[in-house]
């Protein structure tokens, strides 16, 4: 490895580590949020255009349109939990406050995406399977994920001092991690109403390009929206902690 590339790697690593500083993170977030916001709107515009101009499915008819919002919501429900799990590790191993900020601000977003996956899935299931709800492995495991999200949100609000909640929140989040492979592979391990994965085999996806491209662009739009809202929420939480610190300082003066 040349000296230049070594220096570049070290510089990138120190830049990333530097973002863990709340003040530097605020500067980064203030620059990143508008860019991400514009990217989100563009991706949604393209994704929705491609979705609504996609042909009718020969079996599902126009209900295939629900897939373009249901599947990204379900993916994001799991991706958000993965982000929270990485944050939980950062919170437990390095006890870094920004990792805790990331974890607690991602939870409500994860709950919204999981709720949307359940609600749109139910609205898709009725015309396709003839039922709003079935206690099959995929739906039940996603419902459990939703309940875990609500539990994490409740726990994050149960402490007056945010730093006291960091470790319990991280532990509770890590306890829920085994649910992710259960959700992913539930369609292979058990007999469910859901079909096996259609997109994971990129070399041979079980879906025509007229449905695959709108789906992938909608998934990117959901992902960009998640990162926009997550950075905005993290910025809000850092501000809340600054306000709290100032109030404590004022109270000590009195």
């Amino acid at each position, binding site marked *: 490895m040349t000296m230049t590339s070594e220096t570049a790697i070290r510089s990138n690593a120190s830049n990333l580590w530097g973002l863990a500083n709340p003040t530097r993170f605020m500067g980064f977030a203030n620059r990143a949020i508008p860019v991400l916001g514009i990217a989100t709107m563009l991706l949604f515009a393209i994704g929705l255009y491609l979705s609504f101009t996609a042909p009718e499915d020969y079996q599902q008819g126009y*209900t295939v349109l629900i897939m373009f919002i249901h599947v990204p919501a379900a993916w994001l429900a799991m991706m958000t939990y993965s982000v929270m799990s990485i944050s939980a590790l950062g919170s437990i191993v390095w006890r870094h406050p920004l990792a805790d900020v990331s974890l607690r601000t991602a939870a409500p977003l994860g709950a919204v995406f999981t709720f*949307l996956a359940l*609600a*749109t899935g139910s609205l*898709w299931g009725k015309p396709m399977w003839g039922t709003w709800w079935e206690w099959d492995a995929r739906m039940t495991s996603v419902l459990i994920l939703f309940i875990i999200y609500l539990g994490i949100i409740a726990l994050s609000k149960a402490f007056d001092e945010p730093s006291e909640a960091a470790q319990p929140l991280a532990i509770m989040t890590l306890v829920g991690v085994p649910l992710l492979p259960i959700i992913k592979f539930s369609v292979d391990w058990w007999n469910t109403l859901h079909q096996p994965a259609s997109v994971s085999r990129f070399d041979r996806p079980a879906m025509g390009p007229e449905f695959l491209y709108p789906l992938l662009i909608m998934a990117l739009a959901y992902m960009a929206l998640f990162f926009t809202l997550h950075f905005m929420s993290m910025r809000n939480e850092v501000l809340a902690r600054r306000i709290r610190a100032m109030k404590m300082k004022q109270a000590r003066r009195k």
Partner: protein
Amino acid sequence: MFGEHAAFIIPSYLISFVALAGASLVIWRTHIARKKELARMEAQMDQANNE
């Protein structure tokens, strides 16, 4: 439009729009409120320091 299943497709998109736009709005409003409160607190602190 959307054929016989419009009663399922339209609510799906409506729920998604309301939930995601609602979450964005709440987060944005919270940001405005916190920035205002921080500015007010900083002004109070400056005033207290000057006194």
